């Protein structure tokens, strides 16, 4: 340990930053977790490097893709966007298009896993995380040549708050963003929040910074604008979009001349188009329809580890799964490694029947991993006095879910549990099985007793915890209600320090694993990729593929 170096950082850090530095120095955070947390809390790259150097002999990794040639256009297969209104869009297709022209305060790091400085160079919280100061990048211009200022950020935030952005709701009040000067914005939050930079980042896709003159409802195709690397040239909602290089981009000259997006309604034709050499990159594909890509030696897979998962909900308030031993028994029948191999060819991580994904810095790996144990499942059922358990397992027709249901059925059979798989269209499934509109109080109290529902990636687990598991949560189809869990969740929400968040997560993981209101067998990777004719492409788990550093391979 190089204490003089460490002390230098300690002296300049604010309390929350100091908390992270001390946690890393004491070995309570891994290197990866430290970098993630320190970046979120606005510790400068130099300071992070100094802490890493002080605490180990390793030096910060140098980034940069292999060199390529300049010029050319990359053809990208993308989902057809429903909307390119930056404030109101709700689909991955829209996220991917708008993120080419507009930028976030906190952008995506080149590994696609966490945030990095974008339009904001630095962000610093006050002692309790209620006030965040963002220093903006200077000399940034909009595509029309006008200067980007703090007023644009304030106006964007006001639009988002007014529109009820799901990430900012309850966090940033109206008028909470104020321009201190043209290059500084101060956010005064409704309460302390250690994750705020994530909420104005690529992980909250609507928080793209738009010009002050933009009004709610303005779409990128109608009023092309942005500060980003690419200027929208043509857009047709049915067929595709083209972008050309922004010569005035603050990041410098992009190696490629332009982008050509081709829109698709399904993954299968995207894969065929790649095989027919009509596209060079695919924004997202699934293992089932993109199996051939996984073994294609000319295709670079971008497998972004993500919190994408399926929840197998079990009703805790009524029916055959009311006794937690029955729920645990079903969870003990899951052969998780086999599911991951068969459904994702290994491109997923183990789930442990709770929603704290391994990638979150506050994940606690010490909670024992549940594994298949048929004998234990049988003994739990016997202890609960249940014999010949037979239940309908409801599932929507989406990606691998029907196959998951079939595999779960065969695994449960080993413990004498009979699951009747009922696969329905998504509309019917969501409306009739997962969360019927009535009875409305408590929400989802009309849900089936057993089913599989899909959840997308979130940069923090708040939505999973708040909506799906908290008492009377709006998507609580298992009707789980636990005072201990609710308290642990409140503790997590109000924690701003790493140790405190991790302590709350330990409780959450333990409680959920024990109570088992949901089975959660895996978190699967977001899959994208590109032809090896190109290099330097990376992607988030939300459909935003980044091409600013992409080039043709030499």
């Amino acid at each position, binding site marked *: 340990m190089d204490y003089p170096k460490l002390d230098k950082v300690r002296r300049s850090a604010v309390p929350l930053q100091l908390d992270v530095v001390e946690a890393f120095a004491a070995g309570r955070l891994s290197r990866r977790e430290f970098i993630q947390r320190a970046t979120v809390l606005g510790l400068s790259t130099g300071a992070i490097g100094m802490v890493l150097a002080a605490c180990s002999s390793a030096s910060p990794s140098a980034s940069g893709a292999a060199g390529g040639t300049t010029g050319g256009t990359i053809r990208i297969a993308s989902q*057809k966007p*429903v*909307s390119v*209104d930056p404030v109101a869009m*709700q689909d991955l297709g829209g996220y991917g298009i708008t993120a080419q022209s507009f930028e976030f305060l906190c952008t995506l790091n080149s590994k696609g896993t966490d945030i990095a400085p974008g339009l904001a160079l630095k962000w610093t919280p006050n002692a309790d995380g209620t006030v965040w100061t963002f220093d903006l990048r200077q000399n940034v211009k909009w595509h029309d040549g006008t200067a980007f200022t703090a007023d644009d950020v304030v106006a964007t935030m006001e639009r988002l708050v007014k529109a*009820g952005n799901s990430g900012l709701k309850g966090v940033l009040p109206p008028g909470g963003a104020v321009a201190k000067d043209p290059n500084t914005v101060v956010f005064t939050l409704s309460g302390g929040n250690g994750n705020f930079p994530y909420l104005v980042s690529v992980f909250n896709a609507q928080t793209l910074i738009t010009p002050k003159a933009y009004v709610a*409802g303005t*779409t990128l195709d109608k009023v092309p604008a942005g500060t980003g690397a690419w200027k929208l040239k*043509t857009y*047709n*909602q*049915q*067929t*595709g979009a*083209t972008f050309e290089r922004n010569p005035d981009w603050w990041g410098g000259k992009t190696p490629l001349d332009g982008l*050509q997006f*081709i*829109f*698709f*309604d*399904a993954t299968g*034709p995207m894969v*065929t*188009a790649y*095989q*027919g*050499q*009509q596209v060079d990159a695919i924004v997202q594909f699934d293992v089932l329809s993109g199996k051939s890509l996984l073994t294609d030696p000319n295709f670079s897979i971008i497998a972004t580890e993500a919190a994408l998962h399926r929840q197998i909900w079990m009703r805790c308030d009524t029916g055959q799964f009311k006794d937690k031993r029955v729920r645990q028994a079903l969870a003990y029948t899951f052969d998780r490694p086999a599911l991951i191999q068969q459904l994702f060819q290994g491109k997923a991580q183990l789930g442990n029947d709770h929603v704290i994904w391994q990638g979150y810095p506050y994940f606690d790996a010490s909670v024992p991993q549940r594994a298949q144990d048929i004998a234990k499942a049988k003994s739990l059922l016997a202890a609960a006095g249940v014999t010949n358990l037979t239940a309908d397992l409801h599932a929507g027709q989406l990606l691998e879910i029907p196959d998951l249901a079939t595999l779960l059925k065969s695994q449960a059979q080993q413990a004498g549990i009979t699951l009747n798989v009922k696969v329905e269209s*998504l*509309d*019917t499934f*969501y*409306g*009739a099985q*997962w*969360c019927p*509109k009535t009875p*409305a109080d408590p929400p989802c109290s009309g849900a089936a007793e057993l089913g599989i529902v899909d959840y997308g990636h979130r940069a923090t687990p708040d939505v999973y915890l708040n*909506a799906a598991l908290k008492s009377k949560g*709006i*998507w609580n189809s298992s009707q789980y209600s636990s005072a201990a869990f609710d308290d642990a969740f409140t503790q997590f929400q109000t924690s701003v320090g790493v140790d405190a968040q991790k302590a709350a997560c330990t409780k959450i993981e333990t409680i959920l694993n024990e109570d088992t209101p949901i089975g959660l067998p895996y978190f699967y990777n977001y899959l994208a990729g590109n032809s090896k004719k190109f290099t330097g492409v990376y992607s988030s788990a939300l459909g935003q593929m980044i091409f600013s550093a992409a080039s043709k391979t030499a």
Partner: protein
Amino acid sequence: MARFISRRLLLSLITIWLLATIVFVIANVLPNDVGRTILGPFAPQESVDALNQQLGTDRPLIVQYLDSMRRVVTFDYGTSYVTGQEVLPQLAEAMLRSSKLAGLALLLTIPAAIAAGLYAARRRDRPVDRGIVLLGVTSSSIPEFVTGTILVVIVGVQLGWLPVLATPPPDADILTQVRYLLMPATAMAIVYFGYIARMTRAGTIDVLQSDYTRTATMKGLTTGQTMRRHVLRNALIPTVAVIAVQVGYLFGGIIAVEKIFNYNGMGQTMLFAAQRKDIPMLTAGAIIIGIVYMLATLAADMTMAWMNPRIRLDAER
């Protein structure tokens, strides 16, 4: 003839009204929450309710129906529930793309199929006739999505002769557009070749056996003269009817081919609208496809009436 056409037009208007009503009923009878479908299962209920109010989908059904009929009459379909863009320009683009694909498919099919049907009829029961009949039955038995997939794999991916996507790059010239459309058009042409060839063959055989053909031959006309003056005009009447039906289908019902080749014609546009409960788009699309059917049928009726005046007289009676 004017009376014949006006009767047909009147019937067409009634059919379009019925069509609009059926589309409205289907769109509203099925489990339906437009706001929920657009915003997705995870959107808060208050947002869903606000969107339904904004779109007017929370109004009584009768009010929505009358509004829908007003839009049909005034040809004002408003904006898409999903994209927020004007419905008609989007459909016009999709229609133009469908027209190109359907036009090329018909161009490939009709001359070849009619020629094959006539050739087979004149060589009835000979090996060549049996070969054409077998080819026709086989080609029309294989669905176009199977033919399309096989073409994509072999011609597009393995041989790399033609593009696997049907949408050409922006500003592509006509030859490039034809190159992009050739594979899906061929997939469709293979199926329709069988129908049209067999219909032409059957009609021609029927006419070749008729008394007036025998009379024409006996009075000394050459085979060519007999075919042109007496056979073709009568033999092709059922073929014209079949082609008219196929034209309507080609414009609106080729979802599978459009999906395989990622071509955004009317089929994909309508499917996209149906999946998202985009009722304005769905209604306008159904009406437009209905109009295409009407026009194709009307054109066929007029052609048949011109070819055989007895048809016109029967209709006028």
